[in-house]
């Protein structure tokens, strides 16, 4: 696989605060994603995993700027791209679903209208044709009775159903890369399982590449073929899921694995010992 075959190629990405040259948030992250590959990006809060996925979409907050490195999606450079170019890439080459399905749909427009808008942003199709596609999409993400619900408003859906609508919108333009930033964190466990199942099917059918951002390494391991562990703005470990789970190389990964609760977990074991060991190895917070 050459670099240009990759759906996503990030090389030596450095991101920092615009206002303070001293503060660097991502310290030269590199990552390549092949077509159809699923990568789980795991790490604790503040490790830079969400910042990385937002940067891929070209959506880093205004206070933050990309200092060096490149992000290529389907061979197109995202870093420094104009807004109009980003609008073309978003939706068609890459799409994103994220945490809060309760507020991520426009409350005053029907879900159908929003999906239609998404389809028509990238393809010249009639409103009627786009609406038919929207109904098909809603059906394929498991929304019941899509012919009727297409005209419903977001508040008429439950959290899980809204996340399905979000997924329908995200895949409406058949992106090659799907960024899922904690898509199930706000949902209860049973809904979470159903959404993961749905994602699994859709990704399989459509051959999308996925970056699955989560703090839950157990969830990531069930869904992804590869795990990248991030800590303090660096990818500290990467490898096939089975390999990483069985034989973690980095102490931080071991600590993350140790944090998974199982029936065998010893409740008296100190939870933070693994992290403390990792701190000692990486030089603590000196960065």
């Amino acid at each position, binding site marked *: 696989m050459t670099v240009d075959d990759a759906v996503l190629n990030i090389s030596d990405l450095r991101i920092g605060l615009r206002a303070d040259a001293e503060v660097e948030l991502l310290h030269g992250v590199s990552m390549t994603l092949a077509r159809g590959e699923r990568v789980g990006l795991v790490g604790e809060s503040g490790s830079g995993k969400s910042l990385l996925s937002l940067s891929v*979409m070209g*959506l880093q907050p205004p206070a933050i700027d990309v200092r060096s490195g490149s992000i290529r999606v389907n061979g197109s450079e995202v870093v420094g791209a104009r*807004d*109009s170019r*980003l*609008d*073309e*890439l*978003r*939706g*068609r080459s890459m*799409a*994103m679903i*994220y945490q*809060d399905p309760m*507020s*991520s*749909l*426009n*409350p*005053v*427009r029907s879900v159908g209208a*929003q999906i239609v*808008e*998404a389809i028509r*942003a*990238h393809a010249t199709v009639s409103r009627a044709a786009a609406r038919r596609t929207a109904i098909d999409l809603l059906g394929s993400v498991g929304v*019941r009775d899509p012919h009727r619900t297409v005209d*419903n*408003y977001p*508040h*008429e859906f439950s959290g899980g159903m809204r996340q399905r609508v*979000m997924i329908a*919108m*995200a895949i*409406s*333009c058949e992106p090659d890369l799907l960024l899922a930033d904690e898509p199930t964190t706000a949902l209860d466990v049973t809904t979470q399982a159903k959404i993961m199942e749905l994602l699994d099917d859709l990704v399989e059918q459509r051959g999308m590449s996925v970056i699955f951002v989560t703090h839950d390494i157990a969830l990531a391991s069930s869904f992804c073929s590869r795990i990248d562990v991030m800590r303090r703005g660096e990818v500290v470990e990467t490898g096939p899921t089975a390999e990483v789970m069985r034989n973690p190389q980095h102490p931080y990964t071991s600590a993350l694995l140790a944090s998974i609760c199982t029936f065998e977990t010893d409740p008296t074991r100190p939870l933070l010992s693994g992290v403390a060991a990792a701190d000692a190895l990486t030089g603590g917070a000196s960065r």
Partner: protein
Amino acid sequence: MTTTTAIATAEAARRRSSLRVLLADPSVVVAMLTILLVVAFSVLAPVLFPDANAIDSPNRLLAPSPSHWFGTDELGRDLLARMAHAGQLTLLIALGAMALSIVLGVVWGMLAASFGGWIDEVLMRTADAILAVPMILFALVFVAALGSSPEVLIVILGIVKAPLAARVTRSSTMVELTSDYVRGLTVIGLSKRRILFTEILPNVFPVIAAVATLNIASAIMIEASLSFIGLGVQPPLASLGTLLKIGYGYLPDGWWYALFPAAAITVVIAAFNAVGKRIERYLDRRAV
């Protein structure tokens, strides 16, 4: 399925209740009825009083009587008929000015909110500058320079009232821009212009409606003031302000000539203000 239906019904009830909340306030009901009455009366003026401008010299300056409820003017014309026609012009100017101010203000505010930075600064400082000049003075200068046909008045009042709409639109748009659904639409590749005008606009519409209602009241006020000092609508055309000004010359003997147009202006402004303020207060409470 039953739960979905239940939620939908509850929501429908809630949505209807926003109008119900407004109508539960008797002052709003009275104000809305007043507005309706005045509008109907003005619109129907040509039908109700086809010969309002016919001069009838023997009946000059008659006091109110059963045949002339509001009395007659200096040329013997029925004052009620003249007021109906004048009201038509007053409302036309006020509504035109409101529409223009909203269109200008919404675009103005949305551009400021979405570009930010120095464009925002320039646009909003311009708005501040216009708002800092007393409105009547601003209008005076332009009327003196451009004349005072109804069209010119609409444009001037529209421009004078636009900054208020711009400010309100900008602040509401900025709130909406940070919301998750805007990010959701951005990640699927909707352009900023599309997001602003098809997605955000319906969300900020209620706030704009409140400003629009208040702008109507204020436009009537300024138009009447300009007419009163002789810079508004010129005879033979007449707005309520023009009638008031002419009637003022016949005080105190022809008291009805000034009194009824003045009362009409007051009532209409009060009615629009009552509705506008109530919408504003309702929105405030919802925001809490």
